[in-house]
């Protein structure tokens, strides 16, 4: 009986492995490879050329700016929120935890539209911004401008860091912090000396995920960014290149896409290193 069982489970195992491999190759590896292959269809020279057009360079710049701010803001927000949610008890804690997860469950387009309706010409906040502009003599714009792109990217990526930190902080418990507090250490020093060493790797992992997501964001940014060469991010530029229809621009779209694919592969490798480090400490 026992050997039959074992053989059965072995067969199940092989079948499951085969299904997963076939599925992943068909759905993931081949399409991604085709991106790289297509991007090099017209030769390396064309590849480099299509990556250095004004539009693509602008799109790269906007993407990196948006990603930078999203990562900086969300790292601080993520640490603060996960610390609050794991080390303190207060009323409405569960509601707050759920609110943080909203970007996971809401379509990014809706997020983009929400910003549009808030800061756009018809939005309730546009009057305030106009007042500020009048008062300071500035010309700050939110939607259809860089700040809107940054805000949309921040919105879409804000759960990533806290989602990584909360389980680690929960597993660690409060006792070490309590012990340090009992011996007279103050709040921030406790965080720096006791809490931070625990969450180092999880934090880095969260930052990497946040970066990857910010680089690739399309829907939310699409709603608040309409000027090619100015506020377009890389995914939007790729879309524009592809939609313009000529054979050359399609290849250029693939070339631009290959940047994101390469970054994704680097992120995956980093992610595995992080996981390995976190496990082996």
């Amino acid at each position: 009986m026992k050997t039959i069982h074992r053989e059965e489970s072995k067969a199940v195992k092989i079948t499951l492995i085969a299904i997963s491999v076939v599925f992943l190759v068909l759905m993931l590896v081949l399409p991604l490879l085709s991106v790289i292959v297509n991007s090099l269809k017209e030769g390396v020279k064309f590849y480099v050329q299509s990556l250095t057009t004004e539009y693509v360079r602008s799109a790269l710049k906007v993407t990196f700016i948006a990603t930078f701010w999203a990562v900086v803001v969300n790292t601080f927000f993520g640490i603060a929120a996960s610390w609050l949610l794991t080390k303190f008890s207060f009323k409405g804690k569960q509601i707050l935890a759920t609110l943080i997860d909203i970007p996971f469950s809401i379509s990014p387009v809706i997020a983009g539209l929400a910003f549009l309706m808030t800061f756009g010409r018809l939005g309730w906040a546009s009057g305030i911004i106009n007042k500020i502009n009048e008062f300071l003599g500035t010309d700050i714009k939110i939607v259809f401008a860089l700040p809107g792109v940054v805000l949309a990217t921040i919105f879409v990526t804000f759960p990533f860091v806290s989602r990584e930190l909360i389980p680690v902080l929960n597993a660690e418990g409060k006792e070490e912090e309590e012990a340090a507090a009992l011996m007279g250490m103050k709040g921030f020093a406790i965080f720096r000396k006791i809490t931070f060493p625990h969450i180092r790797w999880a934090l880095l992992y969260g930052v990497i995920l946040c970066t990857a997501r910010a680089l690739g964001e399309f829907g939310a940014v699409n709603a608040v960014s309409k000027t090619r060469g100015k506020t377009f991010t890389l995914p939007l530029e790729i879309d524009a290149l592809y939609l313009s229809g000529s054979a050359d621009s399609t290849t250029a779209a693939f070339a631009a896409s290959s940047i994101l694919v390469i970054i994704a592969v680097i992120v995956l490798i980093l992610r595995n290193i992080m996981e390995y480090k976190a496990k082996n400490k």
Partner: protein
Amino acid sequence: MYVELKNINKNYGNFKASRDVNIGIEKGKLVALLGPSGSGKTTILRMIAGLETPDSGDIIIDGKRVNDVPASKRGIGFVFQSYALFRYMTVYDNIAFGLEVEKVPKKEIKKRVTELIELIGLTGMEKRYPNQLSGGQRQRVAFARALAPNPTLLLLDEPFAAIDAKVRHELRSWLKEMIHKVGITSIFVTHDQDEAVEVADEIIVTNRGRIEQMGSPIEIYKKPETPFVATFIGEAVEVENYHKLRGFEKGDYKGAIIRPEFVEAFKSDNVKFKNIIDYSEEGIIEDISFRGNCLELVLDVNGIKLTTRRSLERRPIHIGEKMRVVVYRLYAYDEEKSYLLENAELKGKEVVTL
């Protein structure tokens, strides 16, 4: 009284963790807070430490009301249940932590930490990390870390819970010896009565947020004041119709608790018990189980089930055998109190037992 709690109440939502808690602890004593889980013992400890705030009542340490004094200013050393050693710091750094926070000069820190490491017998392990230590060693480090800043009161939350049975025994006597050597007033929380009886000078029994009884281990053991203490301490068999037993009359009680050591069972031809055989009654052995160092018998006496122990050195017995049974004493109880009742027929008699 060195530590005093006066009319302390503490609720977590609807859960009453402390109800009118009043306790006083003398200086230099090693005190156990004993009770089942959820009885409020850890809450009391954490309130003394300043990790929780009572809803009402006063906490007084060394004559000063400390309710509003922050935890770190109360002069308390705390040993956590899972030790809470800083896992990214070495043994040395763990013990030095409190002193470094207080900005004690490096030289003094070194002297104090070396002294403590010697005291806990871990010399040579200064550079190890907590995950390189055994459970017992970790506890010793936690103890040294709590003592390093020279606290005047040491609090320990279930100090032996995370250690396996064999080492636990060793550590109990070690800790007791250490605490008496250092001479520090100490309070520890435990749910294990053996631990409390063995280690503590004084035991405070808690149940459902209330203090049931305070006293020396012997007092708690011999004179339980409430039905809860009578059942919680020692091994208890509850008997409702205790007045059917020879030597006991029906009083205004709800029932009685009879511990195995209160029951004597012997064969009718045993001359060692000739003094009390006249006051004995018949009991039939219903069950025998091997307990390692003794046998445990369940006897049926007038329809009442009694449990007793029997040395392995005595003559063999078998299930269904008729024995003579004497119950020396029992704890009768009503709703609130527990009362010691002695066997009336044995009063004034010289009872010689082995």
